[in-house]
C-alpha cells in the first residue's frame, strides 16, 4: 500500500470509529465525514467532482468500511453510480447514490441498496443510462440479512427521466459490484478473525484459555488463511478489474466468507449468536454480501468459462496473465 492510500485508510478507520452506530442501517454522520474526505467519490475523476483515485485505493477504503460494518453506500456511490455518471460526462451530484441494472425499460427495480436514503438512483439498461433523483421514485423498504436497506423501487414516470447512451455494459457493472462486495467481505473477515482471537484468549474453560486448545487453534488458523487469501485476491483483482481476476476474487471471497463466519461463531459459542454481541454485525454481512452481485456458483462458472475457453494449453497463460 502506498503512503497516500495508507493515510486514506487510516482516516476512514478513524471516521468509522468516531461515528460508529452499529445498529443503524444508515449512518448519515459517517457518510458526511467520508464525503468530506472525498472517499465517497474516490475513483471518480476530479473534473467530474470525484477524488481521482484508482480502484486499488478504493478497494482498500472498502476493506476498512467492511471491517467496521459501516452502514453507508460507498460501494454503490463510488464504484457504480459515480462511475456511470462520470462515464456519460455528467457531473456527479453530492450525497449518497445508488445504482441498479435493468434488463429493459425500467419500471420496478428490486433489492436496490439504500434506495430510500439515496439522493438519486442510476439505472443501467442494455443501451441507456437513466438518472432518477430521489423525488422521481417511490420506495418499499427491504433489507439484506444484515438489515442493510435493499429496497424495491417504483419509478413514478420512467419516460421523464434524463437519459444517456449506456457508458458501459451490464457485465462491467456486475464486475465492479462484485469487486466492491469482495473488498467489503475481506474487511469483515478481518474483523471476525480479530473478535475470535480476542475471545479465544480471554475465555477460559477447563482452567485454560480457549486459544490453548489445538482444535480451537486450528479454527483460528483456518480463518486467518481464508481471510488473507481473499484479501490478496481482491487487491490483485483491483489492478485488473475484469474477466478471470474479478470472478476469482468474488468466488474466493464468497467461499472464504462462509468458512470464516462459520468458524467465528464456532469459536464464540452461544454468546456469538446473540443480538448484543458485535460478531453478528460482520457475520450477517458476510452471509449477505457473498450472494450480492452474484454468488460463488455464478462467479465460479464464469471462471470455468474462462478456463474452458483457454483450453488445456492456454490454462497456465490465463492464470499468470499480469503476474
Amino acid at each position: 500500500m502506498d503512503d497516500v492510500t495508507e493515510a486514506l485508510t487510516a482516516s476512514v478507520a478513524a471516521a468509522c470509529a468516531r461515528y460508529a452506530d452499529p445498529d443503524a442501517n444508515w449512518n448519515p454522520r459517517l457518510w458526511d465525514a467520508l464525503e468530506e474526505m472525498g472517499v465517497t467519490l474516490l475513483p471518480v475523476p476530479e473534473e467530474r467532482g470525484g477524488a481521482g483515485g484508482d480502484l486499488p485505493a478504493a478497494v482498500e477504503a472498502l476493506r476498512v468500511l467492511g471491517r467496521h460494518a459501516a452502514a453507508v453506500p460507498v460501494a454503490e456511490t463510488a464504484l457504480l453510480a459515480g462511475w456511470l455518471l462520470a462515464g456519460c460526462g455528467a457531473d456527479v451530484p453530492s450525497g449518497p447514490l445508488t445504482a441498479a441494472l435493468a434488463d429493459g425499460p425500467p419500471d420496478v427495480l428490486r433489492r436496490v441498496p439504500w434506495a430510500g436514503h439515496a439522493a438519486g438512483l442510476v439505472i443501467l439498461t442494455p443501451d441507456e443510462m437513466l438518472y432518477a433523483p430521489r423525488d422521481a421514485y417511490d420506495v418499499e423498504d427491504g433489507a439484506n440479512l444484515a438489515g442493510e436497506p435493499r429496497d424495491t423501487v417504483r419509478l413514478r414516470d420512467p419516460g421523464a427521466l434524463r437519459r444517456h447512451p449506456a457508458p458501459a455494459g451490464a457485465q462491467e457493472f456486475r464486475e465492479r459490484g462484485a469487486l466492491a462486495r469482495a473488498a467489503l467481505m475481506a474487511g469483515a473477515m478481518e474483523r471476525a478473525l480479530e473478535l475470535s482471537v480476542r475471545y479465544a484468549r480471554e475465555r477460559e474453560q477447563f482452567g485454560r484459555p480457549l486459544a490453548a486448545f489445538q482444535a480451537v487453534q486450528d479454527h483460528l488458523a483456518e480463518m486467518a488463511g481464508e481471510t488473507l487469501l481473499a484479501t490478496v485476491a481482491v487487491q490483485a483483482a483491483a489492478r485488473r478489474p475484469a474477466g478471470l481476476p474479478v470472478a476469482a476474487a468474488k468466488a474466493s471471497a464468497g467461499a472464504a466468507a462462509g468458512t470464516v463466519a462459520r468458524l467465528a461463531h464456532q469459536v464464540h459459542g452461544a454468546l456469538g449468536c446473540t443480538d448484543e454481541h458485535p460478531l453478528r454485525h460482520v457475520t450477517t454481512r458476510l452471509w449477505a454480501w457473498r450472494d450480492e452481485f452474484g454468488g460463488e456458483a455464478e462467479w465460479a462458472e464464469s471462471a470455468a468459462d474462462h478456463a474452458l475457453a483457454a483450453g488445456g494449453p492456454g490454462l497456465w497463460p490465463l492464470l499468470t496473465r499480469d503476474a
Partner: protein
Amino acid sequence: MTAPSLAAAVPPPGLDGLRREVREFLAAEIGAGRIVPRSDNWLAGWDADFSRRLGERGWIGMAFPPEYGGSGAGFLARFAVTEELLAAGAPVAAHWIADRQSGPALLRYGTEEQRRAYLPGIARGEISFAIGMSEPDSGSDLASVRTRAVRAPGGWRVTGTKVWTSGAHLAQAMIALVRTGPPEPARHAGLSQLIVDLAAPGVEIRPIRLLTGEHHFNEVVLTDVFVPDDRVLGTLGDGWRQVTGELAFERSGPERILSTFPLLTAAVDRLAARGCPDRARLGAVVARLWALRRMSLAVAARLAEGAQPATEAALVKDLGTRFEGALIDTVRMLVRVEPDLLSSDPLARLLAESVLHAPGFTLRGGTNEILRGVVAKALTRES
C-alpha cells in the same frame, strides 16, 4: 494479535518475456520426447541431464550473484521460472533442493570457500544436495534430533541416522542438522549445520520406498563420518536459527500449490473438448488457484525485500497443499476415468500419479497441523 498481512505484489517488468522463453523451451523438450510431464515431478522427477540443460540457460541459481555462477536475475525471476517448470510438470528434482534451499543457505551462511566450492556447480545443474533434518524419532519435533557430532582433530565425527532424505542416493552432499553441544540453556541450543560429503567413508544410504515402490527417500546412516571444520555451515550452535530461517522460502513457494497442476491442465483439455458437466465445480478450483498464486507471489515479494513472513508462508503452505489434494477430487468428479499409472492416456496416468502422491503433500516440509499451530501462536501472541 499479530494478524498475518500481505499486499498483492506487482511483478517486476520483464518477467513475461522470461516466462515465454521458458514455455518455448519446455514445449520443445516435451515435443521432442526428452521429458514427460508428470504430477509431483519436483519430488519424483530426477533427470540430471534436464537439470544441466536448464543450467546452460541460466535457469538454476538465478538468485545467486554472478561471481558464484548465478545469473543474478533475482528471487522473483527464479520464482517465475520455477513456476513455469512446475506448471509443465517438468522433472526438476535433481537441482530442486540445491537451488531452493541449500544454495541460498550457502550464500547466506557459507564461507567464501564453501560458496565457490558448491554454488557454480549447483547453477550448472551438476551438484545436487540433500537435506538431513528428520530422524527416526524426530519428525515434526525437529529440535529433538539425536545425530551427534563430536570433536576430532581438524573437524568432527558424526554418528546418527537421517530419514526421508530425498535424493541422497544421487546427491553429492547433504546439509545435516546435528547436535554439536548440549541442549542448554534451551533445547534449541547446541545444534549446528554440517555439510556432509555423501561419498565419505561411514555414510550408508538405504532406500525408503514410497507406497508406489518409487525410490526418492532414503535413510542415511552416518557412522563416525569425518566432517572437516571447513564444512561447518554458518555458526556452531546456531543451527536452529539458520534452519528456521530457511522455512519461509521452503514453505511459500509454488511447489506447495502446483504439484497436481499438470492433472488440471489435462482435465481442462478434456473438458474443453467434450464439455464440462459442472462448471461451478471446475471454476471453484480455477478461482482458488488464481488466488493462491497471488498469495504465494505476495509472500515472494516480501522475501525478495529481505523480510521473513513466516506466518504468511505457513498459511500459503497450509492452503496450497490442501488445494493440491482437493484438485484431485474435483477432477474425479468431472472426468470419468480410472487412475492408471501405465495408461497411454495422460489424464489417467496423471490422475494415478496425483492420487498416489497426495498423502505426502500435507506432510512434507512441516505437517499442516504444525503449520496451523505456528499460525495460531502468532495470532494469539501478546502484542
